[in-house]
């Protein structure tokens, strides 16, 4: 029955558009002068901060120390990470049991079905990023088999580590230069801040379903 529904719908559509069709050309995106590396960092920082993200610019070799300081200040109890990713492995290597005020590290190693209860009790998660978009101020996340999707969604605090060399000017550029059309991952995400809503009287409130806080460490 479903096959015939398909045929009937497609039949109507084919008849509706006919054979002779003149397709309008899509005008190209506007030519804008490329932003410098510093400008891209600056714009991303400004826009994401305006969306209530906590953005920190840190030297490449000092980010783990900065991370520890942030976590100690926030007083979080458990942090989930993805073993086998550069970020996850760097964190695991730098953690020592019972270090003052740091959250306990929890690896995301098994399928969610056997891990869900624990996952929903964890209050922080750390991920890498596949870049960012300066124009609109958003991180690009491409979760995969080593870095699961829920790390950036379920815990109340999401910490994302971004390589400043991977900031694109625009999403158009990211899609084109990143060759997205040649192979999209299971899930690609843009994330521009902590979860928010304005559904009650248009009052902006943060942390409605997803993370209440988004911490971005930009490695310069």
């Amino acid at each position, binding site marked *: 029955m*479903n096959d015939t*529904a398909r045929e009937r719908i497609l039949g109507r559509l084919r008849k509706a558009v006919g054979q002779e069709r003149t397709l*309008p050309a899509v005008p190209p995106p506007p030519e804008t002068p490329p932003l410098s590396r510093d400008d891209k960092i600056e714009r991303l920082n400004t826009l994401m901060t305006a969306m209530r993200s906590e953005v920190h610019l840190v030297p490449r070799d000092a980010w783990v120390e900065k991370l520890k300081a942030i976590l100690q200040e926030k007083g979080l109890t458990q942090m989930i990470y993805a073993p086998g990713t550069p970020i996850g492995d760097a964190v695991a290597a730098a953690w020592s049991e019972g270090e003052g005020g740091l959250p306990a590290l929890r690896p995301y190693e098994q399928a969610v079905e056997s891990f869900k209860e624990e996952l929903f009790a964890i209050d922080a998660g750390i991920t890498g990023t596949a870049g960012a978009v300066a124009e*609109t101020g958003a991180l690009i996340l491409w979760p995969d088999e080593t870095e699961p*999707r829920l790390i950036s969604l379920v815990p109340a605090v999401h910490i994302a580590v971004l390589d400043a060399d991977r900031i694109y000017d625009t999403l158009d550029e990211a*899609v084109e230069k990143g060759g997205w*059309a040649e192979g*999209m991952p*299971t899930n690609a995400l843009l994330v521009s801040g902590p979860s928010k809503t*304005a559904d009650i009287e248009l009052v902006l409130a943060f942390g409605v379903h997803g993370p209440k806080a988004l911490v971005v460490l930009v490695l310069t």
Partner: protein
Amino acid sequence: METKDTKRVEKPFDFKANVIKALGNRQLRSNLKFAMGSMTAKRKALFSDTAAFEALRARGNAIRRRALLQLPELLEQLERKCTENGITVHWAETTDAANEIVLGILRDHGATRVVKGKSMVSEEMHLNRFLGDHGIESLETDLGEFIIQLDGETPSHIIVPAIHKNKQEIARTFHEKLPDTPYTEVVEELNAIARKTLRKKFYEGEVGLSGVNMAVAETGTLCLVENEGNGRMCTTVPPVHIAVMGIEKVVEKLSDVPPLLRLLTGSATGQLVTTYVNMITSPRKPGEKDGPREVHLILLDNGRSTILPDEKLRQTLQCIRCGTCLNHCPVYTRIGGHAYGFVYPGPIGKILTPQMEGLDRTSAIPTASTLCNACEEVCPVQIPIPDLIRRLRNESYDPDGSVCGHGVKRNLAETAVWKAWALVNRHRALNAVGTRMAGIFGPMLPRIGPLAEWTRSRNRPEFARKSLHDMAREEGISDE
């Protein structure tokens, strides 16, 4: 938790009565005035560079027109790519068929609890009511949708569904409908109540259901746009994800997404980008640790294919459901969404509803426009909404029209009047008599008969005692 779904309102649709009721609701009018003013200001601030906005709009328009002209091929390509990626594609001609497909998937999994992201197509399907009738809990998780579902209402706005309510009303709803919930009017606390209630539901949800903002034929990717994170929860936590989509939402290429995204979020909420843009291309792959193991895409027609043949009316299908025409409409901002009586309110509803539901039931809806053109000016994909409203008004009277229910308003008296008008204006002698009569009887006309209604809120036209022809003749000017 107590949730009830919208009861089917079997009363015949009476637009005028709805409008009068809405206009009398001072709370509604003040809520709308504040909210729409705020949303239009945010949008204006974002698109402050007119030239850049017009260029972006031209791109959006071309992308959507290209997609509609290739709709059958793009849907086949989307189906092929999705299938390759492991997504199961279903086709539904009607909302009943789409509901049955959803139910079939739920039954295959023995599922009784569905967590739902915001979807206007699911509103078309009246999905919550259908699933409720089959003993399945279908829970809205977008905050605005959650609020109105608790009150057994439907969305009054495409983007901010609970905009007709103020925080006192919401506080009362939460206090009364959610167990152990103290009364609070603090918005942050209301949000926290929703977060706590729904988190458990995401955790327990057996199937997640969502809409689709656009689907990319080139890669078989479903794009979902949101701020809250409930959409990501619904499409990532439960083991099964069902996406419902109107067949017109497909685009050709991935490179079409960035401009449409800018237009959508900018027009809808004045945002450069939403908190989350969620692009889904497949179910969980081997080795991945989370995400649904099954993803289903339901392609719903529900009358869309009958809108496509007419080159003018086809433009209705360019819509990306940003809702900005509602915010800018002087009629919508005074009566709100419920008065329109159908799923899509405001200017887009005025052109979409009659084509989906038939003019025989809905011919009053296109009359609710001042033709001020605001909707056309702000439309991110340049739909000439006022033109299409005029076309549908004509269709209401046209026995030879093409839209379902055309000619419904045609009546003998009116037809006779216009026939007489045409006759009088073709024959000089009749015209002379006619203008003289108008001068004599004209002044009393609007106070009697069907025209009395017309002049209640308009200036009464004054007929000249003498016609222009007479005056010219008196001046000695020949009209030969």
